[in-house]
């Protein structure tokens, strides 16, 4: 089966991004960039499904020209080829409509995407794409077995493909839901679906020869005018500095008499 996976280049989520003094932009200079962690889980899941069912894994990134690094990383993990749509930062809707064009051309049976990118935290692109294509969707794919289970160690896919359908376990409020999707379909990944593999040295060497098709965003004829514009940025309100208490007795006293929460 052919699987498309998306990989977004994001600012390192372990570091705090700075806001420009005028509040009109984020300072990304000097920031470290990484593949969106949810997308690495998507790549891993695609590779496990490929191992089980054969076929091809195609990695797509829409974004900055330097995102070829993130595509190359997915190729080093084992994906077959890349498509890089070179564009400035776009809103999720534009991304979804560009992906729709690629899907129409590539005709995959499954698209796997991270549930959200850790920079804009929108959690929209997969659902938007499914809506535009009219395909079934399963967001927040997870699995019953933990990440320390034997199934995970054996790199068993969490998504089960059989008889033209994908069975997906979703992590939702209050429990786990299981859905069956008629293929072609869209799946978005949550954290506990798998542990992404590291690229091996031979994998990295092989990836250098794997093709990445670069496509300028303009060639799609898609209107990328944002439907949602970021107008300005601010720090979240800081919590007022707290106090250190000496012992449990003082803590209990403060909670009772000062905070009045117990």
């Amino acid at each position: 089966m052919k699987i498309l996976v998306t990989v977004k280049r994001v600012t390192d989520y372990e570091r705090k991004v700075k806001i420009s003094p005028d509040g009109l932009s984020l300072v990304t200079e000097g920031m470290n960039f990484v593949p969106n962690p949810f997308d690495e889980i998507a790549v891993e899941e695609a590779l496990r499904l490929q191992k089980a069912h054969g076929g091809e894994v195609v990695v797509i990134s829409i974004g900055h020209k330097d995102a070829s690094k993130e595509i190359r990383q997915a190729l080093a993990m084992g994906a077959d080829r890349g498509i890089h749509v070179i564009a400035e930062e776009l809103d999720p809707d534009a991304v979804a409509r560009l992906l729709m064009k690629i899907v129409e051309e590539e005709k995959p049976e499954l698209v796997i995407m991270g549930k959200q990118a850790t920079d804009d935290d929108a959690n929209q692109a997969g659902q938007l794409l499914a809506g535009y294509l009219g395909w079934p969707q399963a967001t927040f794919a997870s699995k019953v077995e933990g990440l320390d289970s034997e199934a995970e160690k054996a790199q068993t896919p969490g998504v089960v493909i059989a008889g033209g359908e994908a069975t997906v376990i979703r992590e939702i409020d209050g429990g786990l839901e299981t859905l069956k999707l008629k293929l072609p379909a869209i799946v978005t990944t949550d954290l506990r679906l798998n542990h992404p593999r590291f690229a091996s040295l031979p994998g990295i060497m092989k990836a250098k020869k794997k093709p990445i098709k670069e496509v300028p965003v303009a060639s799609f004829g898609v209107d990328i005018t944002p439907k949602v514009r970021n107008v300005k940025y601010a720090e979240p309100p800081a919590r007022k500095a707290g106090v250190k208490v000496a012992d449990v007795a003082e803590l209990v006293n403060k909670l009772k008499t000062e905070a009045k929460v117990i």
Partner: protein
Amino acid sequence: MSNVLVVAEVFEGALKKATLTAVTFARDAAQRTGGQVHAVVIGQNVGAAAEELAGYVAAVHVADQAALAQPTAEAYAKVIAAAAKACSAAVVTAAATAQGKDVLPRTAALLGAGMASDVLGFAGPEGFQLRRPIQAGNVIATVEVTTAVKVVSTRPTEFEAAKATGSKGTVAPLAVDVGAVGTSYVKFAKVTSERPELTDARVVVSGGRGLKEAVNFGKLIEPLADKLKAAIGASRAVVDAGWVPNDMQVGQTGKVVAPDLYIAVGISGAIQHVAGMKGSKTIVAINKDAEAPIFQVADYGLVADLFKVVPELTEKL
């Protein structure tokens, strides 16, 4: 075209509290658009939930049919889009719960609308600029949805639950043919617990790596939570380690909580965790490392060996 449509969430026949937080946002939005608050209730045998919600909004549109018994985004998005058109909605909104996050963007695609996710509130007293967290909650962006119809998911912990209006809105069936769908529902495995739900609890006790072993969750965190009738949360590190189930993770990528009292035990306070709990009214941190970032957000910090002080705290409460 100025009405505001709230997408209700119904679980086992009952209206979810998060829906009433979305109504609060919707009332504010309706003042700005000059329209009324409508709601759509979707499912099978959801009449009681629809009647209840009518006490909060001007009109309730009910899509009650067997094909909608389970909340699959594919079917529900079609219904919401149809309801939005039927009531000339300028704004379509829902709480950013798992269901809201799943179905609203798909609805936005069907409506050709732009969507703002996980909104905290309006940016000012007038206009329609919205505030939402990005970058794991380290930055608050002010955003503008430029399409005529705007889709907004709202973070439930940021809004009070709406009070009933005192009058009763209209309740009318909404006929929608959802047609063929490729999604079929298999099952739901509910996580059962005697404790309050994490996102609803008045008190949350969370444990982290400092507990050293899974078994200490049971020995230290559970008795403290029992005493406080609290829900139990966890840091991502211990969830990843398999000490506790996934759904206990508090953080930007897990559950966002805002209880009256949040007690962080042996949690260092990674950016991602703090983003999920800093809306709490009072935060207590217990950690033996005085430099742990969790103390920067804690109202009361106790630098101590948690193995000694947590049992003591449980006893003294």
